[in-house]
């Protein structure tokens, strides 16, 4: 009977030790998980740094758009003036042609040839001016529309990620609390079992 009681007590002590050891393990897990919350703060800080960086990108975009918008009307004026200039040049060239019709003078013919060259080069330059003007307008569109929209989307994504990180940090806190509660309960169980063992 004495032996049997000894084995029973041994078994009870084994359970008691297991409870106590698990209480410690849960407590240690709770502490480690609590440390994770600090790391979440690090992630949030990085996300905030991204937000600041994005604000700088946005400011730069607005500056570029501002510069191009301010010059936009000037660019249009230059593009429009080209037609007026070419019309005037072709008018005077035609007048010279009429006056010189049938004249065989070399100097006069050279003058006309240069006037024609001036006209055709001006026409090419007009087309080039249109290309430049369109290029500037497209640069404005790319900067204003495409870039700003993308920047807005990144901004929204950063906000969503911050919210998700905050939620995860809260859930981590809850998890740490629950593990701590488990630890306390296992510890109480171990105390009770130790008390019971002592009565045997």
């Amino acid at each position, binding site marked *: 009977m004495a032996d049997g009681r000894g084995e029973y007590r041994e*078994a009870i002590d*084994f359970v008691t030790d*297991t*409870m106590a050891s*698990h209480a410690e393990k*849960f407590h240690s*897990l709770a502490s*480690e*998980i609590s440390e*994770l919350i600090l*790391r979440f703060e690090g*992630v949030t800080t*990085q996300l905030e*740094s*991204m937000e600041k960086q994005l604000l700088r*990108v946005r400011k*730069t975009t607005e500056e*570029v758009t501002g510069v*191009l918008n301010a010059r936009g009307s000037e660019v249009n004026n*230059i593009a429009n*003036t*080209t037609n007026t*200039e070419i019309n005037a*040049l072709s008018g*005077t060239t035609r007048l010279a042609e009429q*006056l010189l019709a049938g004249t065989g003078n070399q*100097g*006069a013919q*050279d*003058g006309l*040839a*240069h*006037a024609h*060259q*001036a006209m055709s*080069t*001006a026409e*090419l*330059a007009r087309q*080039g001016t249109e*290309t*430049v003007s369109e290029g500037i307008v497209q640069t404005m569109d790319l*900067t204003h529309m*495409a*870039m700003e929209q993308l*920047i807005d*989307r990144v901004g929204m*994504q*950063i906000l969503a*990620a911050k919210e*998700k*990180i905050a939620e995860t940090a809260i*859930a981590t806190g*809850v*998890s740490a609390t*629950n593990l701590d509660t*488990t630890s306390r309960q*296992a510890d109480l169980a171990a105390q*009770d*079992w130790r008390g019971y063992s002592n009565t045997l």
Partner: protein
Amino acid sequence: MASEFGEQIKLAGQAVGDQAGPLGVMADGVESMAGYLDPVSEKITEFMTQTRRLQEVAEEIVRMLAAQSVTLLEHHDTAVATSNELQSAGEMAMRLLVGATSSTALEGRREVNRATTTAQASIVDGDRLLQQMGEANTMAGDQMNPLIEAIYLKMAELSEKIEETRTSSRITVEGWRTSSDAANVASEKLIEYGDSL
């Protein structure tokens, strides 16, 4: 003194010459238009540096979250194993206490039950937490990085467009200047001819 016809030729020559000035002004105008692109180009370089920095931070966040996920997964595995052991110990305790009437023993049994139930709840918490970590990782990294990359590509497109426009403007400026010079030569030749008549 030129003849009346000669005077007409001279007038036509002067009219052609009068166009040389405005054509030169056009060249200056296009050159000035191209000049607007200089600050834009500088800003694009700044943009690209800023965007690369954004990308670096986003990648750092992904690394941080991935490391946290691994740690959390390890903790979760430990919690599951410990909880299972706790449950086994609890079951053994129940078997030992069959017929025991001591209030301390009964209280111990209740505490073991409570601890096992809370441990199981913690495991469920851990599962949910791991899922949330995965979502946070996706949001901060997988979804953000392509957007930042898109900004970078858009900038590269913008930079190319600016370079094309600058090249066009250089050719155009040259064209207006050539045209202006030709108008001046034409004017001189016509006036010269007018004078000779």
